C-alpha cells in the first residue's frame, strides 16, 4: 500500500498519484486529509483508498469502480455522481451525500446532512444514523436506507426509487407516500447490511413516489399553430394569437408550453448597422483567405483551448429536445466547419462524440447524462446556470419524448413529463460554485476549459461572479434565444434581450478591470454572419448559433418542438419521425450555412478595412433606433438603415 501525506502534498498532487496508483492497481492510504476538498475526485480504477481522518467536499466525486474508506467525516457531496464503487464513511456526512450517484454504494456510519441522494439515479445510499431535511429530494432511482430517523420532508418530489427508514418518519415530502415492503426487498437490504457489517434488527418503512406529480394532468392538444411572426402583444387587443392561447388553455387547464423562440419584437442586433459603406464588401474572390478568423476560446487559465476556424460555436441544444440523428448531423457539420459543438442537457451520445471535432459537455442541475467518462472525452466542460429563453427555469421534456432509450442515458424513469431541476444541488451560491469548478478541473487533470452558460438576468452581478469563480469563458445568452420547450409567457416576456445583455456584461467587467480575465461567447437569436460580426464589434470573442443551425438543417419553425411529433425528425424521439432526418444530408446543409456565415464574417471584416476579426470594434457600429442607441451607447444614425450590406444577400 502506498502512503500519501496531505501535510506535504497538495490535493492536486494526491489525485495525480491516486490515478497513477490506480493504473498499476495498488491501494493507497491518505494521511492528514484535514477535511480538504476533492480527495479522490475522478479516480476510475478499482483500487482501495483509505483516508485517515476527515475529507472535505466531493470526496470520491466523479469516480468509478474505486473503493473509499474515510475514517471520520466528509463534507458536502460525498460520492458526487459516482458510477460504481463504494464509499464508507466512519463519521458524519455533510449535505447532499450521494448526490447524483449512478450505481455506487455509499455507507455513512454517523448522521448525514440535508438533501441526501438528491437527483440520484441508481445505487444505494445507506445512513446508519439519522438523516436530515429532505432526504431523497428529486431522486430518480436507486435506494436510500436510513437506519435512524428520516428527517423532515423525506422523499420530497422523488420521481422513482425507494427510501427505507428504520427509525421514525418525521414527515413525508411532497408527492411521497408509504409503500408496501416485500420480502425480497427486505432480504436484499439485509444482505447489503451484512456485506457492510452493519447490525440492525429493527423493521423498515418504505417510502415511494405517490405518482401525483409525474405527469401534467392534461396534455396539450396538437394544433397547427399560428405562425411565428404573429405576436399576442402587438396589435388588436383580442387578436388571433390571444384567442389561440385562450383556446388551448381552455382545454389543458394550465400554462402553455411551446418550443422555439419568443415572438415579441425586441431591440436586437438588427437595430445596429455598420458605419462604413459595405456595398462593395466581398467583391474580392479570396476574401475568406484574406481575413484572419481563427479563434481560440478557453485557454486563458492554462487549459487546452477550443480551436475554432472562425469565431463561431454551436449553441447548446439537448439530445432529448432534439433527436439523436439531429445531434449527430449538427456535430458532423461543426466538424466540417472546424467549430465546436455543445451537448446541451441530457448527455453525450457516441454518434455525437464521434462526429464532432470539438465538443463541449454541459452539466445541468439534474445531472442527466452527466458522468466522468464522457467528461474525459469532452473538449470542454460547461456549467449551465440558466438560458436566455427561460432564465431561472429548468428544461421541460414531455413524456412523449422520454423514451426508454433516452431515459436510460439520463438515468430517469421513462414516460414522465420531465421537468428538469432549475438549480444545481451543490451550487447554491458563488461560494459553492467555486468548489464545483475546482472539482471539474481535478476530475479532468486541469486539461479542459470550464465555461458557464448564463441566461441574461442580473448580468452585472453574474458576470463578475463568473470571473471570481475562475471560469475560462462565459456563454452569454439573451432573451431572443430559443428553447425546445418552455412556458409561452416566459419565452415572450421574461428575460433580458441579447443587445443590452452584452453591453451590461462588458461594463461590469470594466468596473472590476477583468475584461482580460474571461472570454465571452454571445448567443440568443443570432441569425447569420452579419449578426456575428456585430456581436464581435460589441466585444464578444465568439458568436453562438442554435436556431439558425436547426433551420439550416430542415426545421420548419412550427413551434411544436415540445410535442415530440416533429415532422422533420428534428425535435422528436419517435423512430418513425426521426427516420426522416438524414444526418449526412442535413450536415452538408448546415455546413453550407456555416460556410456562408464564414464568408459574411470575412467580407464584412474586410469591407470595414481589417484583415483580422480581432480588429473589429464598437467604432464600426451605429444604432438605427433610439432604443438600440440608448442600450448600447452607440450614436443614433438612422440614415444608415438603407445601407444594407451586400454581404447579407450575396453569399
Amino acid at each position, binding site marked *: 500500500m502506498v502512503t500519501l501525506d496531505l501535510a506535504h502534498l497538495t490535493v492536486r498532487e494526491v489525485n495525480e498519484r491516486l490515478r497513477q496508483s490506480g493504473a498499476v492497481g495498488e491501494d493507497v492510504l491518505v494521511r492528514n486529509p484535514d477535511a480538504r476538498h476533492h480527495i479522490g475526485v475522478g479516480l476510475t480504477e478499482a483500487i482501495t483508498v483509505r483516508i485517515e481522518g*476527515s475529507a472535505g467536499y466531493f470526496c470520491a466525486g466523479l469516480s468509478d469502480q474505486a473503493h473509499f474508506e474515510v475514517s471520520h467525516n466528509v463534507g458536502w457531496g460525498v460520492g458526487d455522481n459516482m458510477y460504481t464503487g463504494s464509499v464508507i464513511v466512519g463519521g458524519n456526512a455533510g449535505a447532499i451525500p450521494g448526490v447524483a450517484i449512478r450505481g455506487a454504494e455509499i455507507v455513512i456510519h454517523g448522521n448525514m446532512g440535508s438533501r441526501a441522494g438528491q437527483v440520484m439515479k441508481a445505487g444505494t445510499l445507506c445512513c446508519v444514523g439519522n438523516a436530515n431535511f429532505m432526504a431523497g429530494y428529486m431522486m430518480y432511482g436507486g435506494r436510500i436506507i436510513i437506519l435512524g430517523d428520516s428527517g423532515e420532508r423525506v422523499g420530497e418530489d422523488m420521481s422513482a426509487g425507494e427510501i427505507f427508514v428504520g427509525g421514525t418518519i418525521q414527515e413525508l415530502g411532497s408527492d411521497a407516500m408509504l409503500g408496501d415492503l416485500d420480502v425480497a426487498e427486505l432480504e436484499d437490504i439485509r444482505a447489503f447490511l451484512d456485506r457492510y457489517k452493519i447490525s440492525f434488527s429493527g423493521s423498515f418503512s418504505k417510502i415511494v413516489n405517490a405518482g401525483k406529480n409525474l405527469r401534467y394532468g392534461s396534455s396539450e392538444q396538437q394544433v397547427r399553430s399560428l405562425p411565428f411572426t404573429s405576436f399576442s402583444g402587438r396589435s388588436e387587443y383580442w387578436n388571433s394569437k390571444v384567442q389561440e392561447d385562450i383556446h388551448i388553455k381552455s382545454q389543458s387547464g394550465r400554462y402553455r408550453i411551446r418550443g422555439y423562440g419568443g415572438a415579441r419584437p425586441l431591440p436586437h442586433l438588427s437595430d445596429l448597422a455598420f458605419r462604413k459603406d459595405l456595398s462593395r464588401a466581398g467583391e474580392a474572390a479570396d476574401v475568406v483567405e484574406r481575413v484572419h478568423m481563427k479563434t481560440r476560446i478557453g485557454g486563458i487559465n492554462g487549459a487546452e483551448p477550443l480551436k475554432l476556424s472562425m469565431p463561431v460555436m454551436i449553441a447548446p441544444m439537448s439530445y432529448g429536445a432534439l433527436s439523436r440523428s439531429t445531434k449527430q448531423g449538427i456535430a458532423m457539420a461543426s466538424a466540417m466547419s472546424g467549430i465546436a459543438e455543445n451537448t446541451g442537457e441530457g448527455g453525450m451520445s457516441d454518434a455525437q462524440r464521434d462526429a464532432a471535432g470539438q465538443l463541449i459537455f454541459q452539466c445541468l442541475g439534474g445531472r442527466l447524462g452527466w458522468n466522468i467518462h464522457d467528461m474525459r472525452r469532452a473538449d470542454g466542460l460547461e456549467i449551465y446556470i440558466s438560458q436566455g429563453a427561460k432564465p431561472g427555469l429548468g428544461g421541460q421534456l414531455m413524456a412523449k419524448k422520454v423514451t426508454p432509450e433516452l431515459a436510460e442515458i439520463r438515468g430517469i424513469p421513462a414516460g414522465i413529463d420531465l421537468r428538469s431541476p432549475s438549480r444545481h444541488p451543490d451550487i447554491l451560491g458563488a*461560494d459553492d460554485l467555486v468548489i464545483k469548478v475546482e472539482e471539474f478541473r481535478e476530475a479532468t487533470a486541469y486539461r479542459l476549459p470550464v465555461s458557464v452558460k448564463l441566461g441574461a438576468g442580473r448580468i452585472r452581478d453574474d458576470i*463578475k461572479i463568473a470571473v471570481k469563480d475562475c471560469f475560462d469563458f462565459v456563454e452569454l445568452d439573451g432573451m431572443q434565444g430559443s428553447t425546445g420547450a418552455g412556458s409561452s409567457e416566459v419565452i415572450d416576456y421574461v428575460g433580458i434581450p441579447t443587445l443590452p445583455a452584452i453591453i451590461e456584461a462588458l461594463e461590469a467587467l470594466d468596473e472590476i478591470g477583468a475584461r482580460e480575465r474571461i472570454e465571452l461567447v454571445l448567443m440568443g437569436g443570432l441569425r447569420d454572419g452579419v449578426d456575428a460580426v456585430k456581436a464581435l464589434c460589441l466585444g464578444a470573442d465568439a458568436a453562438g448559433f442554435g436556431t439558425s443551425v436547426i433551420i439550416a438543417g430542415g426545421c420548419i419553425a412550427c413551434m411544436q418542438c415540445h410535442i415530440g411529433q416533429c415532422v422533420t425528425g428534428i425535435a422528436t424521439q419517435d423512430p418513425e419521425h426521426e427516420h426522416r432526418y438524414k444526418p449526412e444530408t442535413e450536415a452538408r446543409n448546415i455546413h453550407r450555412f456555416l460556410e456562408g456565415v464564414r464568408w459574411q464574417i470575412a467580407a464584412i471584416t474586410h469591407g470595414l478595412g481589417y484583415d483580422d476579426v480581432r480588429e473589429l470594434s464598437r467604432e464600426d457600429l451605429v444604432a438605427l433606433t433610439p432604443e438600440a442607441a440608448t442600450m448600447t451607447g452607440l450614436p443614433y444614425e438612422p440614415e444608415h438603415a438603407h445601407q444594407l450590406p451586400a454581404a447579407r444577400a450575396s453569399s
Partner: protein
Amino acid sequence: MCGIAGIMYKGSAQTFDTGEALIRMLDGCQHRGPDSTGFALYEEAQPGKLKLRFFLGDAADSRGGVEAIRQRLSELGATITDESEIGDNYRVTVEYAHDVQRLAYEMERAAKVISIGTSLEIVKDVGTAHDVDDRYDVHSYRGTHGLGHVRLATESDVKPEAAHPFWATGFADVAIVHNGQITNYWKMRRRLEQRDFLFTTDNDSELIAVYLADKLAQGIALNDALKTSIDDLDGTFSFLASTQDEIGYAKDRLAAKPMILYQDDDLVAVASEEVSLNRLFPGQALNTREPAPGTYATWSRLT
C-alpha cells in the same frame, strides 16, 4: 457569498490567541471569498472606556479626517486616552459615560465608523486573511472569542466598508458574520428605519446586526433573538453573532448554507467548512456535527 468562522474559548479567566486562530480558520476557507476578509475581536474590557475604530479612506486627507474625529469626540464629551493609526484605520480609546447610540450616530456623520465597543474591535479590509493581518496585526489580538469572515462580493461593491463583520451601528460590542442572502432585507430595514435605526450600507447582512442589537437592547437574550430571527428573516443564511460575553449561530430552515461545529472542554468553534476547523487541529480527525436546519444556539464565556 462567503465563508464564516467563530471561536470561543471557555472560561474567562485567561486569554487566548483568538486573532491567530481566526486567521488560520479563514485562510482555510479563503476559496469561498477572495475579495475581502474581516474579524470581530474581543479583548478584555477596561472599565469606563470605549474603543472606537474608523476608516480613514484616502491617505492624502487622512490627517484632516483624524482631526475631525478628534474634534467631534471632544464635542460629544469623550476624552481620548489612547490613539493610533494602523493601515487604513484610526483607533482611539476614550473615556465616555453617556449614551453610546447617540455617540455612534453622531460619529457616523463625521466619519466612517467601523466599530465601537468596550471589548469589541472590528478589523476588515479587501484582500485575504494574511493580507489583512499584514496591515492590521490581527495575530496580536488575544481574548476569549471572536468572529471572522471571507467575502466574495456578489451584489454590492468590493470595498472595506462592505466587508464583514457587521457592527450594529449604535450598539456596543455586537457583531455578526453571515453567509447567504436575506431576501426580505428592504422590508425589514424599512421597519427598523421607521424606528430611527441607522443603516450605513446597502448590504443585507447589516440587517442581521441591527435586528439582533434591537432585541438585545430590549433586554431579550441573544439566544431568544436568534430564535426569532429564523422566523423573521427570509432567505438563505448561516450566521454567527457575538456580544461581549457570548457567541451564537442561527441557520435557515432550508439548510442552503453550510455550517459545521466542533466543541470540546476548552473551546467551541464554528465554520462554513470543516477544513477551517482542522486548521486549529492539524492532522487530527475531529468529532464535528452539522447543526440542523432552522436551529440556533449560544455559548457564553462566563459559564
